[in-house]
């Protein structure tokens, strides 16, 4: 595995104040993607991506299959590092710090960036232990603290009322939608600042999907959220900003209300109106 970075970008982003303010809109930029390229061996999956993500917003990433949206999402917590033959160029800065910096502790990075996957993946443990797991592996032993954190995370994931009387039951006793919210609670327990959601509702029924979408709306008050979805309507419902990817390129990134009513580019319009893809 090679992790290659353009040094001039790294030096430009290091030593800058942790919070970068977008001068145009006076909102705090949480994540800044600069001249970012990504390769699987010789095949380039992402091409010169530049994107700023504001704090406490939801960014929806849409695009046809194979456009690079999931690859892009997995870059934020360096999940792609586990694949051999990959290569990065450019920078992704979170609070001004490049996540590809050699001095960065990848465990710290992943603690700060929670991730929820398409298929809910609870551990074969109780509901309580699933949420407590992240705290325990971080060395926390104080039972009262863990208990308080578990209940708060379950409340934040809008699951508490449904499970408060059965915390010691297996996580597998929950429905699919509840399991997915449990995974969100598990991600929240270690207090991340950014949440990555990879098709979090694609395996859920409409009611469970609506609950997860409402949850995302609540969670953005505390977290910055990036969601990949092939369901365009879902991106429209939950995200504040939408990024449209096509063949590894970021075609258009704008307010969701603008992308879905008056996109700037014809190719975006063709995609969201179902004329191709």
């Amino acid at each position, binding site marked *: 595995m090679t992790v290659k970075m353009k040094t001039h970008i790294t030096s430009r982003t290091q030593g800058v104040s942790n919070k970068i303010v977008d001068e145009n809109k006076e909102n705090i930029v949480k994540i800044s993607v600069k001249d970012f390229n990504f390769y699987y061996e010789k095949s380039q999956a992402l091409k010169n991506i530049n994107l700023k993500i504001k704090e406490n917003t939801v960014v929806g990433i849409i695009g046809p299959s194979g456009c690079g949206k999931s690859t892009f999402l997995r870059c934020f917590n360096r999940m792609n590092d586990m694949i051999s033959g990959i290569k990065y160029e450019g920078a992704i800065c979170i609070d001004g710090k490049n996540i590809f910096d050699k001095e960065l502790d990848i465990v710290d990075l992943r603690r700060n960036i929670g991730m929820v996957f398409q298929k809910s993946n609870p551990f074969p443990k109780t509901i309580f232990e699933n949420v407590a797991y992240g705290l325990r592996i971080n060395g926390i032993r104080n039972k009262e603290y863990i208990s308080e954190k578990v209940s708060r995370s379950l409340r934040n994931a809008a699951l508490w009322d449904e499970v408060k009387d059965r915390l010691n039951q297996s996580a597998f006793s929950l429905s699919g939608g509840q399991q997915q919210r449990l995974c969100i609670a598990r991600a929240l327990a270690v207090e991340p600042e950014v949440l990555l959601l990879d098709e979090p509702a694609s395996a859920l029924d409409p009611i469970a999907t*609506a609950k997860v979408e*409402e949850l995302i*709306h609540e969670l953005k008050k505390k977290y910055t959220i990036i969601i990949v979805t092939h369901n365009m309507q879902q991106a*429209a*419902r939950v995200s504040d900003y939408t990024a449209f990817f096509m063949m590894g390129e970021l075609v258009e990134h704008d307010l969701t*209300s603008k992308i*879905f*009513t008056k996109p700037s580019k014809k190719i975006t319009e063709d995609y969201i109106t179902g004329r191709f893809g």
Partner: protein
Amino acid sequence: MKRHFDEDLKKMNTDILKMAAMSEESIYKAVEALKNRDKDLARAVIDSDYKIDELELVIEEEAISLLALNQPMAVDLRFITTGMKINSELERIADLSENIAQCVLQLADKPLLKPLVNIPKLAEISRKMVRDAIDSFVNLDEELAKKVIFSDSEADKLRNSIYNKLIYDYMLKDGSTAPRAVPLLLIARHLERICDHAGYIATNVIYMIKAKVVKHHLERLRK
């Protein structure tokens, strides 16, 4: 289940009510300007119309966003589409009030042709119809919406009687009264059109509540 979408619907609803209050006020002021021959008030109606135009565009944008981003269904869909139509009707009502104010300016420096009796009556009917149409929208009151639709014939009769009086008692007997009679005729026409728009609002409200199309089929209401 709580839906954040409801907050957006509520915002659109609030803006429509604000638009209704502004349109109703413009009718009231235009007719007061006529009764008191108050040119300043007439000009104020004309000058403030842009605010209603701006709010119309805001509501239109809200509705388009709600449709594009939330894929509303059933009652939500009917609320948004009805809201868009009501929005346009209210804007037209405000434009008609502005037209009345223009007529007031034409009449202001001339002696009144006759004491105003039926025009203030028609003005009161039009304001009440607009108010009731909006109340039926707010309270989802089908009976009140029907009442609005049926009271339109009263407005038509009053307009006809104003027309007849002005044409047969004044204009045909003495052509020189035309410059003072025509603006009054137009005012009666504008007021009656306001009543029509209130009726259109009410038919849309019935569609929103019952998913029943009564527009162009008023006989269905009598069944």
